[in-house]
């Protein structure tokens, strides 16, 4: 069984990406970012579908917000994976909406508990999901900004 091979040195990696017209949004740290976004896209949308289909009247606001969050996770996953200039602009918008959403819904969920008898992905700033919903759009925006400078 072969052990984990050493990654090529950074210089080789940057020479490789310099040969391409643009650095890719889905390689390097972007590989991890797309993986985590895909995970949240899948789990948030599956959860929203089940909640809306089976018990919508229980917490309508929370479930609609869950579906809203799920939609933006799908958009971010796809646009980060595609990574062409148009996709990058949509990704920046999507990450910005997510960041605004997690901050707004996080605050709303703490201030008005009656509206949220059940949690959304963004309740308590994503505390039910290890605060990943809070850090994910921040890393997304930082990654896109870094690539924007390089490209």
């Amino acid at each position: 069984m072969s052990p984990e091979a050493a990654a090529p040195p950074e210089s080789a990696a940057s020479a490789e990406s310099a040969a391409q017209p643009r650095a890719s949004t889905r390689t390097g740290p972007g590989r991890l970012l797309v993986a985590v976004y895909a995970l949240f896209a899948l789990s948030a949308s599956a959860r929203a579908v089940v909640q809306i289909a089976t018990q919508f009247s229980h917490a309508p606001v929370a479930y609609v917000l869950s579906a809203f969050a799920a939609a933006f996770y799908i958009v971010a996953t796809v646009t980060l994976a595609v990574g062409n200039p148009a996709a990058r602009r949509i990704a920046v918008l999507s990450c910005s909406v997510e960041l605004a959403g997690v901050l707004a819904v996080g605050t709303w969920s703490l201030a008005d508990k009656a509206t949220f008898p059940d949690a959304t992905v963004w309740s308590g700033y994503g505390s039910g999901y290890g605060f990943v919903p809070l850090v994910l759009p921040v890393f997304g925006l930082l990654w896109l900004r870094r690539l924007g400078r390089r490209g």
Partner: protein
Amino acid sequence: MFRVTDAVPTTIIVAGLALAGYALLMTALNRRVGGVLLAALGVLEILLLVLVGIIVAKLAGGGRPASLPTLIGYLIAMPLVPLVAGLWGAVERSRWGPAVVAVAGLVAAVLMVRLHEIWTVIGV
């Protein structure tokens, strides 16, 4: 008392966390995904398939969780986690490949806790 519905999820949690720890070490050491990580993902895959089998048997035996659609979603998604992470991580030729594998290990562990919340028959 030894119960297979407790032992398998517990093993998956331990295996998932161990895999995540090792994979993050590989990221820190600037390694790519290699044979050891792929073999570990294979072991995790087998454990998850065994658990899917156990849960399907429980359902066939007449047991019902709080939310059946959610459980069915988990049964479909669970075996995909190591598979997709292995593919997505192995094509990455940098330290970020093992980081993807680490996510799969953590997700497997978290899924066990969530499964227990959906259906307490599945212990942890």
